[in-house]
C-alpha cells in the first residue's frame, strides 16, 4: 500500500474522530449547562413550535442577519447555501448507488462551488474594507476564510482545469468507509484539496465554526416567551 494512501487514510480517520468527538463534547457541554433564567430576545414565539420555526428561519434564511446587514447577508447566505449544495454533491463519492439528491445537484455543484468562492470573497473583502470589521478580525478569522477559499478553489480547479480520476477517488473514499483501503490518486491538486478538508474537520470543534451547533443552543433564540404561563426552574437553580 503506497505510503500516501496510508497517510491520508489515517488522517481522515483521525480528523473524523476529532470532529465527531469534539462536537459531541461541545454539544453535551451546552446541553448540560443550565439556563437559569428566561432570556429570549422578544418579541419571541410563545410556544415550542414557534421556537422551532424561529430557529428554522435563522438556519435557512439567516433572518436576524438579514435585518442587520444586507451585504453580509448576501455574501454569507450565498456561501452557506452553495456550501450545502457542494456538500450534498460530494455525497456521490460516498454512496453506491449514488444517493438521489447527490446525483440531482451534480450539474449545478461546480457552479455552486464558484458561488461559494464569490461569497467568501465578499466576506473577506469586508474584513479589509470596513474599518469596524477590520478592527474585530483576528488572524484566525482570515485563516478560516483562506482555508475555505483554498478548499473551494482547489475543488473548482479540479472541475474546470485539472480533472482528477474520480473513479479512483471514489474507490479510495468507499475503501475508507468499508475499511478496505484503495490507493489514492496522487495528483497534487486533489491531495491539496483533501489535506485542507482534513484540516477543516480537525479545527471545527475548536474554532468559531461552533456557531453551527451554538445557534441551536442560544437561549435568546431557543426559549419560548412563556415565563408567566410556565414557571421556569432548572434542577440546578441556586
Amino acid at each position, binding site marked *: 500500500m503506497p505510503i500516501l494512501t496510508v497517510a491520508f487514510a489515517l488522517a481522515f480517520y483521525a480528523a473524523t474522530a476529532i470532529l465527531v468527538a469534539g462536537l459531541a463534547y461541545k454539544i453535551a457541554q451546552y446541553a448540560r449547562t443550565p439556563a437559569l433564567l428566561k432570556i429570549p430576545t422578544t418579541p419571541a414565539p410563545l410556544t415550542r413550535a414557534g421556537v422551532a420555526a424561529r430557529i428554522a428561519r435563522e438556519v435557512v434564511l439567516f433572518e436576524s442577519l438579514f435585518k442587520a446587514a444586507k451585504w453580509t447577508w448576501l455574501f*454569507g447566505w450565498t456561501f452557506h447555501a452553495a456550501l450545502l449544495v457542494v456538500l450534498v454533491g460530494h455525497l456521490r463519492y460516498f454512496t453506491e448507488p449514488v444517493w438521489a439528491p447527490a446525483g440531482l445537484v451534480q450539474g449545478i455543484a461546480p457552479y455552486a462551488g464558484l458561488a461559494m468562492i464569490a461569497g467568501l470573497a465578499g466576506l473577506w473583502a469586508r474584513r479589509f474594507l470596513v474599518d469596524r470589521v477590520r478592527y474585530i478580525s483576528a488572524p*484566525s478569522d482570515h485563516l478560516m476564510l483562506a482555508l475555505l477559499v483554498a478548499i473551494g478553489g482547489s475543488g473548482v480547479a479540479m472541475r474546470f482545469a485539472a480533472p482528477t480520476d474520480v473513479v479512483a477517488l471514489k474507490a479510495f473514499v468507499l475503501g475508507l468507509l468499508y475499511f478496505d483501503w484503495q490507493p489514492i490518486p496522487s495528483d497534487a491538486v486533489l491531495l491539496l484539496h483533501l489535506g485542507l478538508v482534513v484540516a477543516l474537520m480537525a479545527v471545527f470543534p475548536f474554532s468559531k465554526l461552533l456557531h453551527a451547533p451554538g445557534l441551536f443552543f442560544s437561549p435568546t433564540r431557543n426559549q419560548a416567551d412563556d415565563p408567566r404561563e410556565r414557571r421556569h426552574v432548572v434542577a440546578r437553580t441556586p
Partner: protein
Amino acid sequence: MAKAAFDTPRIPDFPEIPVVVEGAMGHSRPFAAAPEHQEALGFPGRLVEDWHDRAIARMGELLGRSRGLRVFLDSCVKCGACTDKCHYFLGTGDPKNMPVARQDLLRKVYRRHFTLAGKLFPKLVGAADLTEEVLEDWYRYFHQCSQCRRCSVFCPYGIDTAEVSMAGREILASVGLGQKYSNEIIGKVHKIGNNLGLPQPALADTLEGLGEDVEEETGVPVRFPLDEEGAEVLLVTPSADFFAEPHVDGLIGYAKVFHQAGIRWTLSTRASEAANFGLFIGSYENMRKVALRVREAALELGVKRLVFGECGHAWRVAYSFLDTLAGPFDFLDPRYPVPQHVVEVTHDLIRRGALTLDRSANDERRVTFHDSCNVARASRMGDVPGGQFTLPRDVLRAVCNHFFDMAPDTIGEGTFCCGGGGGLLTDDLVELRVKGALPRMQAFREVVERHRVTHIAAICAICKSQFAKVLPYYGFEMDQILSVHQLVGDAIVLGRND
C-alpha cells in the same frame, strides 16, 4: 446647568455610522464602590491580592451555570453585523463599544483559559491574558453597556452582549471592583426596601401629601394607600415615582386608574421598589434577594394580584424572572397573569369601557413613544408577541389626539436605548449618557421637525430621568419627557362611572 468638559455630538442630517476612533471613550470610568457597599452585597471590599486567579475561577463558575454565556463566547464568527447597532458606538466611535468588541474583552480571556486553541495559539485566535490593563478595560467598557440587547436582535446567533457585560461586572465585583452607583443602591434596597433609602414614615408622608394635592386639584379623594392589608392589588413601582417629576405624575395616573376602576390597591414599604439592580451587576444572588421582598410583601399584605408600575428593567425582572426567583405565586388569584404591568391593567380597563377618558385634555401635547429596551426586547405585555409595543400605543391613542411614532428602525424591537440604562444613570458617566443618547435624539428631532411633536412618553423610570438630563444637551427642554400614566391621569374623567 453646568456643562461638562466634552462636546455634545452634533445631530447629523441623517443617521451616520461613525469612523472608528480608538480610545475615544477610554477615559470613561464610573466611581468604584466603597468597601462598605461591596461588603453589604457579599463582595470583597477592595481589589483582592489574588484577583487574577479569583477572576478566572469566577469566570469558570459563571460558565458552568450559564448556557448563554458559554454559547455566546464560543459562537461569534466576527461577522460584524452588530458593529453599528450599539448607541454607545454610534455616539462615540470608540471601537470597544461595538458589541462584538465589548464581548471580545471577555472572550479573549475565556479563549486563553478555557479553550484549547487559546491555550496553544493565543495570538492566532485573539486570546489574551488577564492583565491589569485588561481588567481596567473590563471595568471601563462593561460600564459602557446599558444591557439594552439591541445587538442581540441583529446577531445571527442572538448573542446578547448584555449577558456578557453582566458576567463581566459580576466577576469584577467578586474580585473587589464593584461599581459605586449600583452597589450602593442595592445595599439600600436590602436594608430599607427602596433605591432611595426612603423609610416608611417618609414614604407615608409623601403619599399622604400626594393624596391631598390630587384632592385639592380635582375635588376627588383619590387614595394612595400604603401597607394596607387585604387590598386586592399590590402595586410595586420604582421609588422615583414617589417624588420626582415626571415620575410622580405617573403614580398619580395609576392612582386615578385604580380609583376609577374601583380596585382596592396598596403600595408596600417592604417592596417600595420595583427596580432590581441585581440584574445590572449580573448577580443572581442579589437579584433574587431583592425579588424575594416582593413575594414577602405580597404574602404579608394578603393581596390577590401583583401589578408593576412604569419601569423597564423592573418589568423585565418581574415578567421574565420573578416566578423563577421568588415563585411560585400560587397564592395569588389565578385569573390574572402574575405579574401584570400597569399598562396591561389600564389597557384592559379602557378596552372594557371602564374608564371615561377625555382625550382633549391632552390636546396641547403632541406625543411620541419611546420603547424602553427591557420592555421591548426582554418582556411582553398582553397575550401576543409584540404586545409590549401595541398596548402602550393603544393606551396613548386612547388618551391623546396627537400621537406620532418615531422612525420604524428606532422603535419596536429595534428601539434605541435612552443612553442611561443598565446601571449607568449616574453623574460620573454623564458624557457617556449624553453621547449614547444621540440615536434617540436624532429620531426624536425628526418627529419634532416633521410632526411638531412636543413630548416623549415613556414607561421607565430610568428613561425618564435620563431624558430629563440629556434633552437639554441637544437643545430640547427637560420637561419634554412624560410618564405614559401622566397622560392617562390627565385624560381620566374622575367621578361616578355609569
